[in-house]
């Protein structure tokens, strides 16, 4: 992992040069447009350089995508008058402390009243505290840790599904089947993200009346899961869900087969859609499930641009030169939340806008958005793909499905 980061670091260096060169341009454009009157300004601190510069770039492209297209249409029509959109960006160098400081600067010095989120949970967690302190709304798109929303905050909202909801799609889908599975086993690597995902899975399963027969974690970097899987085989669960990083997931699938574990439904928190995964496992990867935040063939369509998810993917690729994964639409959706809220209440004070955001119930190309009292998006659940003939096929939710779920998994395959 260390070396992947190294590669990223080099890449981020290149980005940082690009940013340094572009900074005067950005500032210039801001100062020139400041004179114009009808403008809505948003602010965001992003990891444009440093460790997470690659992802930070994807987020910025998502925000910019919205800005470009809404301005092309004259801006956000608020109370009969169009307002152009502008975003003030700062580079936090992938450092949560810097992000926190910059968010404060956005509020205090730049008088930004509508905040967007930084990249990553570790930056969002402290940065959102500042927003809460100044009572300025922050609609974030990339802090998936549940803990961000467990602090009773009023001003923080997220467009994505938080970690605890990762298993939701698969479990809801399971519960809706004709002959629903009754038992579940959960396995995860002893690391924060997999742990939160499986803890969420356990709670969700209990809620749906699925009996949790096994839940264990294994140490990071393990080379052998066979005996753990031997125990799973004895428990004979209908569903097997596992959370961990790719190497472990490949190992898990191989050894599950070797040990004769035959769940009717087999889901991994990540892996199946990553490059190399299917190659490594060949036929053994067949019928595996993975929850995903978004995919280009979702049957969702927004009412601002009138674009579907696939329209978004197509136009985005034309604008930015690469096919978007979930990062850009997830980011653009945060601006759509503001779009609707501002249309409803106008350029009001942050408190009023906050209340409008809390009442959000919209449809976007990223999916439906509706917040619970904690600020988490409960409008959408994770979509689910299943590997069929080596290709990821969206099988849930049904209205976006590209294919039918194969259930129970036929053995041998």
């Amino acid at each position, binding site marked *: 992992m260390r070396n992947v980061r190294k590669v990223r670091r080099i890449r981020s260096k290149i980005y940082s040069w690009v940013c340094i060169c572009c900074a005067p341009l950005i500032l210039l454009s801001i100062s020139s447009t400041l004179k114009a009157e009808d403008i809505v300004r948003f602010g965001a601190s992003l990891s444009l350089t440093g460790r997470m510069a690659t992802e930070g770039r994807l987020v910025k492209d998502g925000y910019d995508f919205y800005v470009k297209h809404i301005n092309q249409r004259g801006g956000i029509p608020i109370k009969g008058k169009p307002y152009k959109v502008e975003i003030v960006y700062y580079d936090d160098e992938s450092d949560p402390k810097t992000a926190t400081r910059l968010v404060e600067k956005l509020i205090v010095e730049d008088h930004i009243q509508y905040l967007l989120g930084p990249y990553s949970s570790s930056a969002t967690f402290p940065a959102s505290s500042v927003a809460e302190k100044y009572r300025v709304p922050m609609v974030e798109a990339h802090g998936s840790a549940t803990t961000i929303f467990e602090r009773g905050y009023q001003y923080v909202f997220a467009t994505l599904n938080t970690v605890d909801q990762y298993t939701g799609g698969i479990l809801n889908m399971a519960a809706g089947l004709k002959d629903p599975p009754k038992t579940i086993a959960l396995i995860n690597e002893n690391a924060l993200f997999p742990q939160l995902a499986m803890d969420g899975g356990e709670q969700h399963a209990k809620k749906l009346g699925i009996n949790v027969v096994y839940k*264990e974690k294994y140490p990071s970097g393990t080379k052998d899961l066979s005996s753990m899987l031997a125990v799973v085989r004895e428990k004979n669960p209908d569903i097997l869900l596992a959370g961990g990083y790719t*190497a472990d997931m490949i190992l898990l699938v191989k050894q599950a087969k070797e040990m004769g574990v035959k769940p009717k439904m087999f889901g991994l928190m990540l892996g199946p859609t990553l490059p190399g995964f299917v190659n490594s496992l060949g036929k053994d990867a067949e019928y595996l499930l993975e929850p995903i935040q978004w995919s280009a063939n979702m049957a969702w369509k927004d009412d601002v641009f009138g674009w579907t998810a696939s329209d978004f993917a197509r136009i985005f690729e034309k604008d930015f030169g690469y096919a978007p994964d979930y990062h850009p639409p997830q980011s653009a959706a945060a601006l759509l939340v503001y779009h609707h809220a501002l249309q409803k209440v106008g350029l009001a004070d942050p408190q009023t806008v906050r209340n409008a955001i809390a009442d959000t119930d919209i449809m976007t190309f990223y999916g439906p958005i509706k917040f619970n009292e904690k600020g988490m998006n409960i409008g959408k659940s994770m979509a689910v793909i299943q590997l069929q003939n080596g290709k990821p096929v969206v099988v849930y939710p049904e209205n976006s499905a590209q294919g039918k779920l194969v259930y129970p998994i036929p053995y041998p395959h």
Partner: protein
Amino acid sequence: MTLFWQVLINGILSGGLYACAAIGFSVIWGVMNLINLAHGSMIILGAYITYMTTSTFGIDPFLTLPVSGCALFILGFLIQKYLINHVIGGSIFMTLILTFGLDLLLINAYLLIFSADLCAITPWYAGLGWEWGNVKIPYTRVGAFVFAIGLTLLLSLFMNRTKLGNAIRATSFDKDAASLAGVDVFKVYAITFGIGAGMAGMAGTLMSVIYSFSPVTGEIFTMKAFVIVVLGGLGSMPGAIVGGIILGLAENFASVLLSPGYKDAVSFFLLVIILVLRPRGILGKRFYAEVRD
């Protein structure tokens, strides 16, 4: 009861592979008092060689054992001859730093050549196996076990029955006396490192059939090799087998009886116990440091 037998078999099967992964490390450490931190990366290289060979020629992964073994032997021989032999007389930290650097070099070379993606080899019989009641015994693991133990025994025979083996053993006990007896110590060192690397390469081949790997997954094997060598006894071939199987059993039973999360804790607990009760290891004789005057 089924579970007991299954876990027992799992433990023994993974133990055999652990032994094979540790033996090269053990030989190099035992003979030259050199802790080869690049050992895990050499195992990974063996795995990549198998991966490339099988994907290019479509042959069975087990048949690539000679390829990975020879390639790594040559690499190891050259590394020792032109690199490590120049610093080996000095402080142990010099060799540690050198092999650590070598490890980084190898990892980054793999990243460039093979990219950071995970690889796994899936022969047609992957996932199949014998069934004995409800106990599953996968072919790939049995194959890896048999070859692992076979190679370890072969190496043991080589050490005891050949002239070169005798030279290596003599050098390991007293390099000055061996030198006076007419043994070219630096050549023996180069060959020993070659053998250690060759064993690592073949362990990599066997490992690739069972586990997935990427440029950075070697580290864990260096760690395990360390534990096994201390458990079984430095430089001892039967010790490596015993150490490997004990580690395999301990890990597997710990993951069932306690929790999979305690797996590593248990193996390191074992390590501490052995260090306290029997610092020479279970089958070890003299600890290297004691031989040196």
